[in-house]
């Protein structure tokens, strides 16, 4: 089949970008979307043009590298599917597609469809962990974990950090990503002791990074390739509220410690 692609081209973070049109010929329905772009790129190189930069690595929906908007929907909008898992059999001959990078000031464009998502790493660094240094762990079975909690934690831990939630959110909020980590760690007994500070620190960091504020629209949940649920955002709000109301001034915590 043959497709027309409108792709955002931008040389680097400081130069302006624009949409450009390309023809993708000889597209097989068995190709993945990225393989289709590979072919377009090979043609561009042969023609002496700069190939379209897009991020990818595992190509099986787990590393979270890939991701851009296809026709106004993050990852193309197929349930639980990243761009790299999307196959061309979902498209038709003659389709015209719009391909754009994630748009958020916290995700500046690096080149073409590649954006800088390091803000996510800094949100995790602010508190998205359990403070346990190597060697200090008790036996794995020392603390039983309710199966349901382990399963719920796993559901939330499935987040791949792709950024689609931010991209789809009309507010460019990082609530689903942040909520997923807070929910994951907060549902395990090991993570409970730190859950309040974790929420405070991660939420503050997300604010510093320039993400917008969640107004519970739910586009994030609909386009998240890992099915992370809005419930995680409620948990984030809950922990953040509890933490805010019970936070002690620094002097008091120091004397208690």
């Amino acid at each position: 089949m043959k497709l027309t692609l409108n792709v955002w081209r931008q040389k680097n973070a400081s130069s302006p970008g624009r949409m450009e049109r390309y023809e993708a010929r000889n597209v097989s329905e068995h190709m993945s979307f990225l393989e289709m772009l590979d072919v377009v790129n090979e043609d561009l190189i042969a023609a002496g043009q700069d190939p379209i930069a897009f991020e990818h690595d595992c190509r099986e929906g787990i590393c979270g590298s890939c991701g851009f908007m296809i026709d106004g929907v993050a990852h193309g909008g197929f349930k639980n599917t990243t761009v790299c898992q999307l196959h061309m059999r979902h498209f038709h001959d003659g389709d015209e597609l719009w391909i754009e990078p994630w748009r958020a000031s916290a995700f500046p464009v690096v080149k073409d469809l590649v954006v800088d998502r390091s803000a996510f790493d800094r949100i995790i660094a602010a508190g998205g962990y359990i403070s346990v240094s190597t060697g200090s762990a008790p036996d794995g079975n020392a603390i039983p974990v309710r199966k349901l909690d382990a399963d719920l934690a796993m559901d939330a831990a499935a987040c791949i950090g792709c950024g689609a939630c931010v991209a789809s959110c009309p507010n460019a909020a990082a609530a689903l990503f942040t909520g997923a980590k807070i929910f994951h760690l907060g549902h395990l007994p090991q993570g409970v002791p730190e859950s309040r500070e974790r929420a405070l620190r991660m939420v503050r960091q997300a604010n510093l990074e320039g993400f917008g504020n969640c107004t519970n629209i739910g586009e994030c949940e609909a386009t998240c390739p890992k099915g992370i649920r809005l419930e995680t955002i409620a948990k984030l709000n809950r922990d953040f509220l509890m933490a805010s109301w019970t936070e002690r001034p620094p002097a008091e915590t120091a004397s208690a410690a």
Partner: protein
Amino acid sequence: MSLNARIPSGPIESRWDKTKFELKLVNPANKRKFNILVVGSGLAGASAAATLGELGYNVKCLCFQDSPRRAHSIAAQGGINAAKNYQNDGDSVFRLFYDTVKGGDFRARESNVYRLAQVSVSIIDQCVAQGVPFAREYGGTLANRSFGGAQVSRTFYARGQTGQQLLLGAYQALERQIDAGKVAMLPRTEMLDLIVIDGKARGIVTRNLVTGKIDIHMADAVILATGGYGNVFYLSTNAKGSNATAIWRAYRRGAAFGNPCFTQIHPTCIPQAGDYQSKLTLMSESLRNDGRIWVPKKQGDTRSPDQIPEAERDYYLERMYPSFGNLSPRDIASRAAKRVCDEGRGVGPGGLGVYLDFADSISRLGEKTIAERYGNLFEIYERITGENPYQVPMRIYPAVHYTMGGLWVDYHLMSTIPGLFVLGEANFSDHGANRLGASALMQGLSDGYFVVPYTIGDYLASNKLEKVDESHPEAQAAKRGIQEQTARLLEIKGKRTAASFHRELGKVMWDQCGMARNAQGLEWASERIAELREEFWSNLNVSGEAGELNQNLELAGRVADFLELGELMCHDARIREESCGGHFREEYQTPDGEAQRDDERFSHVAVWRYQGPDKPPAREEEQLTFEYVKPVQRSYK
């Protein structure tokens, strides 16, 4: 320089404890004076960087992805082994050790493997404490599943995403150290050379993948944890970015390479669909717990699977290996699949596929249980092939998956260059000639959390390291070399893209150095690769410039290294005149087609040393001794 593996003496159970006691320690106050570079943020790299940061060292960690969380370890599905014996089914450290040595077809070092089995227990504890959401029983205890090559149930798992969850655990520990200022993280940074000063590893040269800037980083010790090189075959289950560049450049600087030809072909992958295909997708081995593998008994049987009656199906693994059946080790299962396809009994396009059928399990356990166990894998399969495996059996075929070979390291995980440590899949590893399922994750985390943090301290405490900085002539020369190479790649301005060379190299490797190898084919492949390399350097077309994000240039550099490594692999495979594990030489097989080891001549690690650009590499041998597990013909019948 002769090889000294520094294997401790004494009873195997106490060797690691004894070593740990004898290791020199770095005074806590002095740790922050040492700079350590960790290249790679996969399970091995992230766990090492986090742990070294916790200990107080000054760590710099780099990866080529945009975030350390995306290292290829994220893709591991099935699980991680540990000798916990929570199932009370007779597991023990010794049994895990035994299974791993046997599974590796007696080509691994006993002491290392024993340590791995010992440490495995602490890994699970550590990961649970970090919040890794392992599968649980209703009572709240950890659940296990079984994996190929073992008769006990010792694999811990987090749904079908064990690697992801373990990596996120290590990544979070790493981010915690980054926040604490103990680790500096450099994402989107590729190591392109190793700086060796006075025979010791003292730094690396990197390229900033966004700006193209070439930088020098100096350190007191360098850790490589850059993963495997399966992508030399172009199509593999590895991530697209996985590469050999870091270890290959270290090899060219003097680090010896162990067993380059030992490659694992995984039996259960989704078959290739077309030429444009960019990678192959693994279907976790855990599927073999409940799926039965079969092909039609008749050649060229084109009926749809549901039209083929039970009596006309050949459940060949169950038939040939009754005691392990569908859970036979990977090398054996892969070869068996190749054999039935070569007999013309393969299914699907091109006859390159076998069925993995869940019909029996679904009728026995119900669709719900199967969905709970493998739901996400079934989804992956359906997404790629458009077929529903709850109704139609999966079609699978073997694909390159893991490289047991890698930089040679001693018991301390140090390479032949002092101060250069190699962890995870990048080293020649504890898996001998074949890795058992769920053991790579175990090894990566063992190396990173529990081995290198000790042994690197000993190196730092027992060596007097001169102060050196970027201005050192060796550092400057290395930097210049990289700048020149980059310029050269861009200047060729030929006709062929790096990807096209890569694809062609991959085909040569798969055909001649893949599941079955022979002397003639390997010799031909060596020559063909040399030609291809020549063409590469005269007819390559790389678009764009050096000073920008240039994915094409990155690929070209990696392919250049694959074109050298591929030849070494063929060479190594040619000289190892025996079959063992994943290395199957057609000339050396038992009458019933099993691998025929030659312990007389080849009970050793082949250790290769670089001699210069146009000289053949030198081969040395590290003899392997087996005091605890007697080498026998590996039998899974």
